[in-house]
């Protein structure tokens, strides 16, 4: 049974909550992909007469703002739809970068031991002790703000968490007899790490990655808030949220809608991540 076919049979037996969450995540991905087609307005077009209109407001020209407008009279719904692109792209890219770096270094430290272990794990400690915001400000000062800077800053500051998990898991797995058996079979270096160790430590790493996914969207928001991330007028959920914060008492919709989207996206990723971890394990195959 191939992995894809196996996953398909599992998905057909998955509980309703998983189906709903998968549908939700799929909807967000489609929304981000087809944002220009779905958005009713240009997300950057301002209209100072239509500032802070409540959801469902219809103008004299017959235009309806389903989610209302922001402080510059831009259509909130269009901005939320377009914002999904930046937020999800930043989250996916930075989680990928940090997962790659962190698990590679963690596995290397756990496998090679000796001075490699000391060097990598002390570096991890150093990285963890530097405030991420400080590093971000430094990086932005050197490279300038922007999309790539944001991904690099997040990717290069968040990897120590993966490295810690990968390191601890590798230490545990490396002493098991099947790793010794693989060595006796003649497997070495990359083959041993990728084929024998990585699949057996992937579960915990996946859980860290899904937890980090939500955090990355929030980090993007706070960095953008500081002016270090996504630059206006490009919308992201983070920038919409931080701008809406100032109008919390007067215009609840500015934070409620992107906040709800953020909540649902992070929830679906976390629930699906847990489910995937349980079901990628061959020991828990579907019966029959």
């Amino acid at each position, binding site marked *: 049974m191939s992995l894809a076919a196996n996953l398909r049979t599992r998905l057909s037996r998955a509980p309703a909550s998983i189906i709903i969450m998968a549908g939700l995540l799929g909807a967000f991905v489609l929304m981000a992909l087809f944002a220009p087609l779905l958005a009713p307005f240009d997300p950057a077009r301002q209209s100072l007469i239509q500032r802070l209109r409540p959801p469902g407001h219809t103008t004299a020209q017959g235009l309806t703002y389903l989610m209302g407008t922001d402080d510059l009279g831009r259509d909130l719904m269009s901005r939320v739809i377009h914002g999904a692109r930046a937020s999800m792209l930043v989250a996916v890219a930075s989680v990928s970068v940090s997962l790659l770096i962190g698990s590679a270094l963690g596995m290397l430290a756990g496998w090679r031991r000796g001075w490699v272990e000391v060097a990598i794990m002390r570096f991890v400690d150093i990285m963890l002790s530097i405030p991420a915001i400080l590093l971000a400000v430094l990086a932005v000062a050197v490279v300038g703000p922007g999309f790539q800077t944001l991904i690099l800053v997040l990717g290069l500051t968040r990897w120590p968490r993966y490295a810690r998990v990968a390191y601890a898991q590798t230490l545990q797995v490396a002493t*098991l*007899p*099947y790793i*010794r*058996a693989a060595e*006796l*079979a*003649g497997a070495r270096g990359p083959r041993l790490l990728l084929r024998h160790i990585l699949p057996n430590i992937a579960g915990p790493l996946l859980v860290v990655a899904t937890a980090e996914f939500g955090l990355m969207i929030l980090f993007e928001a706070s960095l953008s808030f500081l002016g270090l991330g996504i630059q206006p007028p490009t919308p992201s959920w983070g920038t919409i949220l931080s701008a809406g914060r100032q109008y919390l008492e007067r215009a609840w919709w500015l934070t409620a809608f992107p906040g709800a989207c953020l909540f649902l996206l992070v929830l679906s990723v976390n629930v699906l991540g847990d489910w995937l971890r349980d079901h990628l394990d*061959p*020991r828990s195959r579907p019966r029959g």
Partner: protein
Amino acid sequence: MSGVVLDVRDAAVHFRSRGGFLRKAAPPLKAVDGVSLAIAPGETLGLVGESGCGKSTLANAILGLVPLTGGRIEVAGRAVDSADRVSLSAIRSDAQMVFQDPALSLNPRLSIGAAIGEPLLVRGLATGQALRDRVASLLKAVGLEPDHASRFPHAFSGGQRQRIVIARALALQPKLVICDEPVSALDVSVRAQILNLLVDLQRERGMSYLFVSHDLSVVRHIADRVAVMYLGRIVETASMSVLFGKPRHPYTQALLAAAPEPDPVRQRAKPRRVLDGELPSPANLPPGCAFSSRCPLASDLCRSERPTLSARPDGASVACHHAEE
């Protein structure tokens, strides 16, 4: 010596605890100290001793998984050097290992076909259909269905998993298979099956076994010769019948006395021999005979001078000052 599959001469494995910052280096732990033994083609040598006596360390040293501190080990005429990758690779195609716990010696994420075929694949000896054919014939040889190759280890019972591990060990057609407690993690009901399988495979393929165990009743079933190990040294070697019929070393006698008899009448009639004293730490051995702290025959000589292995007319060797002739 030519024609010997395994030749261990005066092998020693000492583990040094590294002294670190503000920490004094402890004396080395002598896990294996001055062990010599040889195995002829097609022979089964049982290596027995209580846990912590260095049996598994010796097994690991033979495969180069642990560096030797002293002495020399030759597998099929080739010296084992744990630092030399090229020669290690050759040695590991002549000597393979069957581990104690079959639940832990198979990668749970690898199909059993991939696990059995890995030694062949990694060495470039077979790929594609040829590899699948080899795996199928290995599965058949250990009494499993060839079309089980795509299943994962969790789908098999403990006994079946140990068959898979044996198939993997046989993939390279080794001259020596080191069995490190191969049945002690199995149910008693499947032990005999696995032991019989090992005997059958040896008859068909003619390889030698180094059979490491703490269980004399298991060794009795399979071994031609037995070496008894105590705290890193061999205290007695003899052929199976001599060792069980006329154990000479007091430690061997105590081991045999401790093994339960299936017949309760004989069990009750058996002289009881309980060892007193503590097992000394292998990091801090007494100067004389290592067994002197627990030996009923220990004299001042034993506590000051270490006995060496001396040969007896019936082929046995004993390291004891007081062993009866």
